[in-house]
């Protein structure tokens, strides 16, 4: 317990050092930054480019606009972050299903692994942002019975596209991880594919799956935010990001609010998966002893 507190204290120290660096540079650095040749290698220090840390934090407490109905900035950001979190979670779940499904197929048939894995790796070089409008447009065509495609689903779909990759790779590794001795033990028990999967492969995959799920969660958040920007979905943090960036000339501190929101959002998403890891700690015993 005390170790955890000391980690928190050190971490807080690290953040403080960062803040101190920011302010020190802002105080000492030239207004137009440090330019080497034609490239500016250190940033400008104007209030427009680098607001004071206290201005950024202070701005969070003020209302979004002067309009009487405006909520405080932090409230608007919190609400948007929660919205995005929900979308990212949906995308993450889809990513888990697809990723684990692909991993199962690839683990079962080597030919599938050879045929699919290179494409799965390649898929990560595809700039998804280019597809956001296409996904939205395709999605809007889907209407099955009472089910109607919502715009947020397009965003979730894009989030899942980013999330599935680490999960597929991690799950494949995990499913392939059982020692030969364990696989053969199951064989001597004349255990079938599903029994082996349930009793051996899935439990053995947990230590590989957890970091993959965490990475997937972080990726889902990135995907959700970028896709919100890209499809213009309202209500999420991505939307606030462009909206407040648009107001940054007159109100530079405001643009940082959604960035802090995105950081918190990512940490919460990754942290929730860490919680999952705590629940499954018995499946991670090899990790701890190794």
């Amino acid at each position, binding site marked *: 317990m005390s170790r955890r507190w000391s980690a928190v204290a050190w971490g807080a120290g690290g953040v403080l050092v960062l803040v101190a660096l920011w302010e020190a540079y802002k105080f000492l650095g030239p207004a137009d930054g440090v330019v080497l040749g034609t490239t500016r290698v250190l940033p400008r220090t104007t209030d427009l480019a680098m607001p004071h840390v206290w201005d950024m934090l202070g701005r969070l407490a003020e209302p979004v606009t002067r309009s009487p109905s405006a909520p405080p900035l932090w409230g608007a950001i919190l609400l948007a972050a929660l919205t995005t979190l929900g979308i990212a979670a949906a995308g993450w779940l889809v990513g888990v299903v697809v990723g684990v499904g692909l991993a199962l197929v690839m683990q079962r048939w080597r030919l599938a692994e050879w045929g699919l894995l290179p494409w799965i790796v390649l898929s990560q070089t595809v700039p998804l942002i280019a597809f956001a409008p296409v996904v939205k447009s395709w999605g809007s065509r889907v209407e099955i019975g009472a089910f109607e495609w919502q715009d947020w689903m397009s965003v979730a779909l894009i989030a899942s596209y980013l999330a599935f990759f680490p999960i597929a790779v991690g799950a494949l590794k995990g499913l392939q991880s059982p020692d030969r001795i364990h696989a053969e033990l199951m064989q001597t028990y004349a255990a079938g594919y599903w029994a082996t999967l349930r009793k051996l492969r899935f439990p053995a995959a947990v230590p590989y799956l957890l970091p993959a799920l965490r990475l997937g969660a972080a990726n889902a958040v990135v995907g959700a935010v970028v896709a919100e920007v890209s499809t*213009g979905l309202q209500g999420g943090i991505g939307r606030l990001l462009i909206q407040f960036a648009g*107001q*940054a*000339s007159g109100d*530079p501190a405001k643009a940082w609010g959604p960035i802090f929101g995105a950081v918190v959002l990512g940490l919460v998403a990754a942290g929730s998966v860490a919680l999952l890891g705590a629940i499954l700690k018995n499946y991670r015993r090899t990790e701890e002893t190794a």
Partner: protein
Amino acid sequence: SGGTDSGDGGDTADGDLTPVKLQLQWLPQGQFAGYFAAAEQGYFEEEGLEVEIIPSGGDIVPQDALANGDVDYAIAWVPKVLGSIEQGANLTDIAQIFQRSGTLQVSWADSGIESIADFEGKKIGSWGFGNEWEIFAAMADEGLDATTVQIITQDFNMNAFLQGDIDAAQAMTYNEYAQLLETVNPDTGELYEPSDFNVISYEETAGAMLQDAIWADTERLESDEEYQETTVAFLKAVVKGWVYAAENPEEASEITIAAGSGWGPSHELWMVNETNKLIWPSEAGIGIIDEAAWDKTVAGALAAVNESGAHLITEEPPASAWTNEWIQQALDELEADGLDLTGEGFEPIDVTLEEGGN
């Protein structure tokens, strides 16, 4: 739009409402005040419509949403849609809401950039996403091609210009120009003044192009009678909305804020007011497409070449690309209501901008 079979777009306000989807070009803001006013004031319902206004933003291309059948009408700039039409979209401009271009190119007062000809060798800001064609068209008229300048993509604010990364920034009269005037001049501690800037208005150049127009699906317009009726009803409500916005700019700006605009009240009011200026006066009646302006836009679009050598369009758009038929019908029907459809009595108001637009 296929939901009702009453076929009656008329006055049955409390009967079945015809659902209509309208795709905006950007986030909810004063630029679209007339549509939000029409919704809020119940004009759509009066016409028997239930209109869902879909905001855009990011990479969503309104005319594509329309061409794909996702929506029934879309607001988009004419040059951008001309490009889509050449790519195979089948769309028709049914009402030219903005009668003039609201695009400016802003430079510092001491920069020496006073006309398009001064662009040569300068860093010229543009948002991309098809907003750059006016620049290229204006430059083409001056004999400059896209490679003689450096095009910098502006992001969502004016910082790049304020910090000198861009020599001349693209700005809409109703938005980015106001952003400049909402920013504190670090030298004086006061907000920037209009006198701090040189402003080139594309409306006064050969590059001027028609902007916010209402687009409809050409095929449905030709063959679907129900859609035709809906179109007239829709246009009537929209016109009423814009008339309301012209007469009640404060209320209109409050309506857009309530509809989800993220701007502060002063900026919003500025935007409604400036938008009104682009619409009114409208000698032939609001929404009527001026053939000369249309032809000028087409000529500009044909002339413009971007820096990767791509043309916006390479041939004249088809005749179906625009028609005054429906807006004329709508205006005729509204004539009786005694509305000011030409903006004869329109008087812009004075708006004081606050720091940060808040």
